[in-house]
Every structure is written in structure tokens, then in C-alpha cells.
């Protein structure tokens, strides 16, 4: 009974602190893009009913070959690294992944998965090094970098036998077939060769190291197995005219030399039923293929294609050639390479990175991050995985409908002669009348439904909705492209531009002072001026006087005295202003290095190094630095306490929160410094904990507070969330900054810092602070979790003033404080991503809507996730359940009642005056 009462009380207390997402808002206000990451052709298996991929982002996924959607995927960041790893088919229904583990590269994680459902069949961890080669012949034969060879049961994953290579051999690959296992190695003085091991017993079949190429001291090696014979091919270093080939299926492999028609830059070799086919890419970028037939111990050229501007690849028994506008296929037989047909297809214009083919279809990777799955009849599907490699993301404001047309006209009317302005206005209003019927229809539609989303916005338009929920999110990708996503249409692509900076890599994008313009800055000084709403490149230029060998490190934007400046910061500590003017007043810059914060002053067009803040010991390294969002506005300079006195907030805009870890002692520290003078304002050390230093410390700066988190094993295992509230004084009603200007150089008192630590059960991968339009709404903390979720942590809950070990007094209750409880449970109502699996998010950006209550939140990294949050409840928005009909009916009923009772009352009053009625 008591427990129940207590839990009820607790629920009531926290009801105000916790607010989840309503069921009718899920999938409406939010969207999620599930990605897999960059595909590597060596880790992609194309089969008729599945495309299995282990991506560069450690995602093992199976794509539907029909439409390219993800059938299942696993984020194996904890158990498998993409390099080195091997993905191959185990049998007709299962795939096998062998990869080094992230924690220890000497351990191989090997796992078998059912391809249809994604169920794990078995998994094993093998010591003896990273996987070098895996071959499947019934069971799994694996060669590891430590010289171990293992046979693993394909049914259970248990080890059947183990074989260790003799000394002096470095493993190259393994080929298993017909009861024997060939272990290809390189021996220091003997060259490339192989051992033969009995597949059943695991013992050396012949005591001989068969040398196939003595001179191949360092070879680039490739293996082709499966369809035809097992072929080993290699080239001598620096060789571009010949390829060495050995057929391992022969009882005594003989070495052949292939001399292609032209010099090649790269080649891929596949075995066919009769020989081999090699697809070459020439030094001039053109590609061709040559087919060789093997007969009586000799390889003879039987056919070839002409070098064309295309990419070619060999599927099972077929050759495919993909050019910009077409896909051609060729059949291969012992006689010739026969063209089967060419289909005109519109492929992306970006350069092709790779082509990998099955017997009927090809997966084409483009340099812009797009992947096209195409059969000989045309493109089946396209996936854009460039959004998994985002350099920077930015929200673009859209104009409200009709506003764009009026702005210039209003300015004209303000400045023109009165009569002219009057005529202009009348004309404008007359023209605007044309839109009246449409406006009325939409008005009544909206009025009756009570839903502002009821009037849908055209996805092709570039106008904002009433509440500013529609914006474009512009992403800059590592491939040098820009992608704009529409927040109101589930992240649909609004526009895209590839290779904006003409093969320069993008360092950052910032908004310019013109509302819809963006600066895109590249590492080598390229600057593109882009319309962020349409994606049109307005101008492309190079930074003037860009130092030789210099590199842009970051792009910054700041506003001083109402003027916005955009500048590029380079590795040589140069500052290039991009928006024309340079500041006339001195501006103080600070930059983080590995173990220090360095201060600069920019005055008289020169950047001068001024101060340096170094960490207390050299073993510390900085993991993250945060400063307050310069656009964040303060509404109230103090915090009102329960007795109506005021604690004044320490609102120094120069606060820089520097989080550092010590890898040796596994401890963490936080420093608050002034970024103008480098003065240390506050520091805290977490020495008695075992901090996960690899994960680092995540830190954010809110209005007058700092929140940081780190994972530690002691004293209690979990993510420690520490909140620091900064006040001008610990004495109430005392404000030393009153009536004076704040200068970092003045001897201002240090802030009074109140702190509380909280415990969160899940790993937090990043933190961000929400920002509303006017700063009246609470600022809450958005945390991305490694449980593939996005959580909203209430700052009111993470309060440094919560009373410890006692119930709050009446005054404290009025302040909204509840008793301190170190554990912030993983309440499901915190999770704004609800059922979405948002994996690999590393960063979150926020942007206010037109409504003060609402903040748009966008998380990116691998997956993309967007939602709207209302940290202080949607106080300026009627809920969808508000009964507008009832309100209207009531008003109507009242009008009717007044209409009928009015005459009655009048008559009565008249009668009373005449005295005919008492």
C-alpha cells in the first residue's frame, strides 16, 4: 500500500518534469533515414534475392535487390571493424563475416548470418590475428595474420582443427577445394608459394613449400574463386604491362603471364568455365576486357573489347560494361567476347568508383556516394549513402508564402514619393486579390479542421509553412557534395549538387548575412557561394593570397556590431575573411589544439598570438570544447528562487568549456576558461574514477550552465552527467555586473558554481542544447545514445539546486525542485526517437521554429533523424484534440439565445416602466 502510494506520488512529482511524445505525433512530426554507409565492392555479395553488404561504417546489411530498401541491418561497431574484414557466402542461404574486433585487432570475430532474416546462426572469436583469407568449402577455412589456419564448422562455428604456419612465412591467402587446403604465403627469401594441408586432418599433405614466383618479393595479389577455377594473380611491384596468373585448381599449378593490349592502372580478374577474363582500367582512364581460354597448359587470348570511357566488371560468366549513359553486357565463352546488348540508362553523372556484378545485375558505386543497382534492362534502384559522411549540417530558413514578392515592394513604398507609393500599393493589393479565392478556401479548410498541416505544402515549392516547421537541412558530404533535405516531407531530397568545389574537399558551410545564401569552403581555399534554397551555385572562387601548402581548418562566422563576418581559419593560423569587410574593432579568437587552447587577437588586419592555456599535466588531452551558441538569447538575467529573491546568472559570453581526459590514469577533467583572456574560471577533476577515455567527455554550454558527461566504471558503472550552474554570486540579490559593462580584462569576480552529478544508465554518444526563437522556452539537452536512440533530458531535472537527502522545502517546491536522486533512469518518455533505430548518430543540430515553444532537432552521423521538441510544452499551439467544433457550436448557440431572449428582455423592461407589470 505504501509502495503504491509512494509510486503514485513519485509519478505526480515527475509528471511535470517528464513529457514524452504523444502517440499521434509519432511518425508525423519526425522522420528517420536508415543508412548503411559506404559500400566497398570487396565486402558486397550480389545474389539474385539479396545484396549483402558490410559497409565502411561497420553496418552489416541485407538490401532488397528489387527496391534497395534495407531488409535488415546490424551496427557491428562493437564487434567488427570493416578493415580488415571479409564477407562471403557460407551456403545458399547464409553469409559469413570475418573481421578483426575493434578492441583487439589480434582477435577475429567470425559470424554466420541467415541472409533472409538476418538471424545469427553462430559466432566465434578466434585468437591468432586479424583475418587474412577465408575460404568456404563446406566448412570454413580461415587464415589469420598471426599465421594460424583454422577449420571452423559451418554448422556450429566450433573449431575442427588448427594449423600453425612455419616460421618465416607471412600469410597471403587461403583456398580450399577438393579435400585440400592451399595456404598461400610469402617467404622472405623464397618468394610467393603455397602449402597444401589436408582438409580433413589439418595436417600438412606435402612437406613442400611450392614456390610459384621467386621474384614476387612484394606483390599485389588477388584471388578469384567460385565460378570457375581458383585463380591466383599477382603483379610485380611497379609493373603495368603484365599480370602473373596461376591456376590453383591444377594439381601442379603452372604460372602464366598475361600481357594486355595496353598499359593498365588496375585490373580485376575473374575465372570463367573455360579460362579467365580480366577487366582493365588503362592509364588513360579507359577500360577494356580481355578473355583468355586455358587449354593444354596455355592461356590464349580469345577475345577482347575496345577501350571505352566506361567501367567494366565481370559477373558470373558475363562481362558488363557501364558507361555514363548505358549498360552493355557480353557473354564469355572459349571462342570470343560476344556483345549481348546495350541498354540506354541514365546513370548519375558522377565518376564511377567501382562496379561489381552478379550474373544478371551490377552494383555501381559513384564518387558522389550514390549506389546504383542496375540490370541489363535498366536501373533497378539508387541509394544515396553520401548522407552518412556528413562534414557539416545547417538549417536553411524558407520564406513564407508571398513574403518574397512583397519585401522589395514594401521597401519601395517606404521610400518612394507618397502618391507614387500609394498607386503602387493599390496596384499591389489589386494584384493580390487574385489569390483571394485560394486563400479563402485554404482558410476555411484550416479553420474547420483546426489543423495547420491540413493544407499541404507542395514538396516542389520552397516556401515555409505557417509555423516554420518546414526548413531545408543542407548537408555537406565528405565526397564534396551538398544535399538539401526537406524537413516537412520526411527528409525528401530538395536538391543536390555534386562536387561543389571542383574536387576540393569541403571543410565547412556557413550561412551568409543574406538569408538564403551559403558559403561552402574547401580545404584548399575554394569558396562556393550557393543559394541554399535552390542549390544554385552563384559564384565559385579561390581565397586570395592563400598560402602555399596551407589548408583551411575551419570556417567561422560571427557578428560584431551588427555586421556578420565569415572567415576561413587555416593551418598556418591565417584568417581569410570571405564576406568582404574585415572587423575594425579587435576580435579575440581561440583555437583548440591537442592539449592546449591558444588565443589570438585580430586587429589592424593582423592575427597575433596572445595566450595559451595548457592542461595541468602533459598526459591530459582535450576531447571536446564547447562554447555558448552565439545566437542564444537571454531573456532573464537572474533565476528567481522560491522566496522571490534572485540569483544572478553568470552570463559571460566568453566561456569556453574544455573537457580533457588522461589516458594513463583514466580520469577526466573540465576547465571553464575565458576565451578572450585565457583566464581559468573553474575546474573540476574526476580522478577517482575509471573513465572511458576513448569515448571522451561530451560537453555543452547552455545559457549560464555547462553539462558534460563521460562513461566511468567507478564508483557506479554508467554515464556520469554533471551539471554546473554558474551564478554571479552565491548571495541572493547581489549583482556585481549591474550598471556596468562587462570586460574580460577587468578584474571581475569568479563565478559561483553549483554542481550536481547524475547517473545515466546508457552510453551517451553526443550532447546538444535546444535553442528556441526568443529564449523564453526552457533549454533542454538532446543526447544521442548508443542504444540507437535519441533522448531528451530535461534541464529542470538536471538541476544543480535539487536538495540532497531531504524533501524540498515549500520555497524549493515553488522553484520546481524535487529531491535529488543521482540516478536518472532510462525513462522511455525521454526517448524522442521512439521505435526508430537511430544508429551511429554523432552530432545534433537545433533550429527554432517560428513558434517559440518548438525547436527542430536534427541528428546525423550514420542515420539521419529529425523531430520537433517542445521543452516547455506546446504552450502556443492548440493541441490536435482541441474540440474546435464544440467551441463553434457553443458560440453559435449563444448567438441564437441572445437573438431570442433580447426582445423578451426589452419588452419586460418597457412594461416595467409603464407599470403594467410588477
Amino acid at each position, binding site marked *: 500500500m505504501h509502495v503504491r502510494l509512494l509510486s503514485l506520488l513519485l509519478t505526480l512529482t515527475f509528471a511535470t518534469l517528464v513529457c514524452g511524445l504523444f502517440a499521434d505525433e509519432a511518425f508525423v512530426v519526425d522522420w528517420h533515414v536508415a543508412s548503411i554507409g559506404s559500400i566497398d565492392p570487396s565486402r558486397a555479395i550480389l545474389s539474385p534475392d539479396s545484396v549483402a553488404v558490410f559497409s565502411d561504417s561497420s553496418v552489416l546489411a541485407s538490401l532488397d535487390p528489387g527496391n534497395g530498401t534495407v531488409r535488415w541491418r546490424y551496427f557491428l561497431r562493437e564487434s567488427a571493424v570493416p578493415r580488415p574484414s571479409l564477407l562471403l557466402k557460407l551456403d545458399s542461404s547464409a553469409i559469413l563475416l570475418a573481421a578483426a574486433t575493434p578492441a583487439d585487432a589480434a582477435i577475429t570475430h567470425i559470424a554466420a548470418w541467415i541472409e533472409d532474416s538476418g538471424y545469427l546462426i553462430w559466432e566465434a572469436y578466434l585468437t591468432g590475428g586479424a583475418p587474412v583469407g577465408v575460404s568456404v568449402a563446406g566448412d570454413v577455412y580461415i587464415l589469420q595474420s598471426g599465421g594460424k589456419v583454422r577449420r571452423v564448422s559451418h554448422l556450429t562455428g566450433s573449431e575442427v582443427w588448427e594449423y600453425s604456419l612455419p616460421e618465416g612465412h607471412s600469410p597471403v591467402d587461403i583456398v580450399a577445394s577438393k579435400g585440400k587446403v592451399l595456404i598461400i604465403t610469402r617467404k622472405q627469401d623464397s618468394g610467393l608459394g603455397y602449402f597444401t594441408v589436408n582438409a580433413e586432418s589439418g595436417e600438412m599433405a606435402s612437406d613442400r613449400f611450392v614456390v610459384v614466383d621467386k621474384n614476387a618479393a612484394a606483390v599485389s595479389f588477388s584471388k578469384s574463386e567460385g565460378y570457375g577455377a581458383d585463380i591466383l594473380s599477382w603483379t610485380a611491384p611497379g609493373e603495368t604491362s603484365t599480370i602473373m596468373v596461376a591456376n590453383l585448381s591444377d594439381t601442379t599449378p603452372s604460372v602464366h603471364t598475361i600481357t594486355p593490349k595496353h598499359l593498365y592502372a588496375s585490373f580485376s580478374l575473374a575465372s570463367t568455365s573455360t579460362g579467365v577474363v580480366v577487366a582493365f582500367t588503362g592509364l588513360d582512364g579507359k577500360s577494356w576486357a580481355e578473355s583468355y581460354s586455358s587449354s593444354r597448359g596455355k592461356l590464349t587470348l580469345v577475345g577482347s573489347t575496345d577501350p571505352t570511357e566506361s567501367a567494366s566488371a565481370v559477373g558470373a560468366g558475363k562481362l558488363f560494361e557501364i558507361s555514363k549513359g548505358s549498360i552493355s553486357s557480353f557473354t564469355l565463352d572459349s571462342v570470343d567476347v560476344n556483345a549481348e546488348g546495350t541498354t540506354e540508362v541514365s546513370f548519375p553523372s558522377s565518376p564511377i568508383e567501382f562496379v561489381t556484378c552478379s550474373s544478371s545485375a551490377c552494383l555501381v558505386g559513384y564518387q558522389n556516394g550514390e549506389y546504383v543497382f542496375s540490370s541489363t534492362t535498366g536501373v533497378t534502384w539508387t541509394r544515396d549513402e553520401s548522407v552518412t559522411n556528413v562534414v557539416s549540417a545547417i538549417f536553411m530558413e524558407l520564406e513564407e508564402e508571398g513574403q518574397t514578392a512583397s519585401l522589395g515592394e514594401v521597401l519601395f513604398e517606404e521610400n518612394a514619393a507618397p502618391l507614387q507609393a500609394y498607386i503602387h500599393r493599390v496596384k499591389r493589393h489589386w494584384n493580390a486579390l487574385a489569390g483571394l479565392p485560394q486563400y479563402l478556401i485554404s482558410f476555411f479548410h484550416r479553420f474547420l479542421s483546426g489543423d495547420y498541416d491540413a493544407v499541404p505544402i507542395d514538396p516542389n515549392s520552397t516556401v515555409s509553412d505557417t509555423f516554420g516547421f518546414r526548413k531545408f537541412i543542407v548537408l555537406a558530404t565528405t565526397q564534396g557534395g551538398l544535399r538539401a533535405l526537406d524537413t516537412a516531407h520526411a527528409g525528401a531530397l530538395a536538391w543536390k549538387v555534386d562536387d561543389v568545389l571542383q574536387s576540393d574537399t569541403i571543410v565547412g558551410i556557413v550561412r551568409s548575412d543574406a538569408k538564403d545564401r551559403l558559403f561552402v569552403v574547401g580545404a584548399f581555399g575554394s569558396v562556393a557561394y550557393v543559394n541554399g534554397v535552390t542549390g544554385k551555385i552563384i559564384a565559385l572562387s579561390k581565397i586570395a593570397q592563400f598560402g602555399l601548402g596551407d589548408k583551411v581548418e575551419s570556417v567561422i562566422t560571427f557578428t560584431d556590431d551588427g555586421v556578420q563576418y565569415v572567415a576561413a581559419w587555416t593551418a598556418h593560423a591565417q584568417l581569410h575573411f570571405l564576406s568582404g569587410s574585415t572587423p575594425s574593432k579587435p576580435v579575440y579568437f581561440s583555437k*583548440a589544439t591537442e592539449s592546449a587552447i591558444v588565443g589570438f587577437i585580430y586587429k589592424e588586419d593582423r592575427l597575433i598570438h596572445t595566450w595559451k592555456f595548457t592542461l595541468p599535466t602533459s598526459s591530459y588531452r582535450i576531447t571536446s570544447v564547447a562554447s555558448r551558441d552565439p545566437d542564444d538569447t*537571454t531573456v532573464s538575467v537572474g533565476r528567481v528562487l522560491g522566496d*522571490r529573491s534572485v540569483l544572478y546568472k553568470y552570463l559571460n559570453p566568453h566561456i569556453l568549456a574544455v573537457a580533457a581526459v588522461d589516458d594513463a590514469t583514466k580520469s577526466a577533467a573540465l576547465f571553464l576558461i575565458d576565451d578572450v583572456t585565457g583566464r581559468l574560471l573553474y575546474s573540476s577533476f574526476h580522478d577517482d574514477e575509471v573513465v572511458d577515455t576513448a569515448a571522451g567527455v561530451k560537453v555543452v554550454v547552455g545559457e549560464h550552465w555547462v553539462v558534460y558527461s563521460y562513461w566511468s566504471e567507478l564508483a557506479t558503472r554508467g554515464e556520469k552527467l554533471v551539471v554546473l550552474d554558474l551564478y554571479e554570486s552565491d548571495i541572493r540579490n547581489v549583482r556585481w555586473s549591474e550598471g556596468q559593462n562587462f570586460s574580460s580584462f577587468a578584474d571581475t569576480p569568479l563565478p559561483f558554481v553549483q554542481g550536481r552529478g547524475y547517473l545515466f544508465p546508457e552510453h551517451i554518444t553526443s550532447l546538444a542544447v535546444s535553442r528556441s526563437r526568443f529564449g523564453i522556452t526552457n533549454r533542454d539537452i538532446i543526447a544521442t545514445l548508443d542504444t540507437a536512440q535519441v533522448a531528451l533530458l530535461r534541464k529542470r531535472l538536471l538541476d544543480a539546486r535539487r536538495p540532497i537527502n531531504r524533501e524540498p522545502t515549500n520555497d524549493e517546491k515553488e522553484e520546481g525542485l524535487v529531491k535529488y536522486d543521482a540516478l536518472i533512469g532510462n525513462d522511455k518518455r525521454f526517448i524522442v526517437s521512439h521505435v526508430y533505430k537511430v544508429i551511429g548518430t554523432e552530432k545534433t543540430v537545433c533550429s527554432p521554429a517560428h513558434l517559440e515553444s518548438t525547436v527542430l532537432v536534427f541528428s546525423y552521423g550514420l542515420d539521419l533523424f529529425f523531430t520537433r521538441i517542445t521543452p516547455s510544452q506546446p504552450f502556443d499551439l492548440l493541441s490536435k484534440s482541441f474540440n474546435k467544433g464544440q467551441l463553434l457550436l457553443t458560440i453559435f448557440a449563444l448567438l441564437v439565445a441572445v437573438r431570442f431572449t433580447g426582445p423578451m428582455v426589452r419588452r419586460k423592461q418597457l412594461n416595467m416602466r409603464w407599470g403594467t407589470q410588477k
Partner: protein
Amino acid sequence: MATPVWLTSYTELSSNAVKKPSASYPDPPAFNKEIILNTKTKHGKEILGPTPEERDTLKVKKAWEIALAPSKSLPMNAIMSYFSGSSLQIFSLTMTFMLFSNPVKAIANVGPTFARYESDSTFSRILQTKLVFIALQLATMAVGVWKMGSMGVLPTKRSDWLAWESETLVLEKGVFVS
């Protein structure tokens, strides 16, 4: 002809005229004059009406009664205000409103209230009562003010003026290059 007694008794309202007939005709049976008038006639004094001075004194006394009436409700108001708490509820709000509206009305009507007791001779004394009356009404209002204070609607604390405090102007411009 002499004026008949009935006429005198109808026209003359002076006490003498009323008194006179008592001697001329006998009292009704069982009427005991002694019982009715014994308080005054015990010592054989004749019953006479109050003098103008006495009447004024009486009026002033009455005026004082009215002037001091609010003091009787004052403790009750204070106690009720105290016990109704500091929360903003309809009951305490109405009460607080009455604590202001009633005194204001009373002060506005102070002339008519005391008009009955006013004459040229009592003017100065009645003025005293008026002033006391007004003072007590103001005291009632003071209870109202105290009540408002306890409800927290008076801008007496620092936080009430916080909205008018502006942010400190920052002189330097610091930019962190992330």
C-alpha cells in the same frame, strides 16, 4: 370662549399642554401613574424633554458609535485574512477585493453617513469622528495591503523587478574557432 381642552391637546404639542389634562380628568381605572413614570417622578421631578446640549451630546455619541464600528470588524478581517492563506483562490481574492472596495465606498460616503448628526454646534466634534472613521477604514485597507503582500502580488521583492533589468553589455568580441 375658552379653547376646548381637546383642541389644545390636538394643536399644542408642548409637554405642558399634554400634561394639563391629566389634572382635569381622572386616570382610567387601574392606571398607575406611579408605575409608569416612577423613574422620573420618584423624587417628584417633572419629566422634561432633552435640552439641545443633551441632544448634541447624544448625536455625537451616536456618531462615535458609527465611527468606531469598523474597528469591530477589523480583527475579524485580519484573522480571516490570515487563515485564508496566501494562495490565489476565489475566496481569498473576493475577500481581498472587499477589503479595498468597502473602505473606499465608506470613505466616499462619509458625508451622508454622518449628515444626520451634523449641525453647526457639533461640526468640530463630528469632524473628529469622521477622521477616526476614515482612519479605521484606512486600517482595514492596510489589512488588505498586508493580505496582498502575503499573497505575493505586491512588487516588493527583487524578482519582481527582474524583468526590467537588462543584460550587461559585453565589450570584447570572442570567437572560438571550432
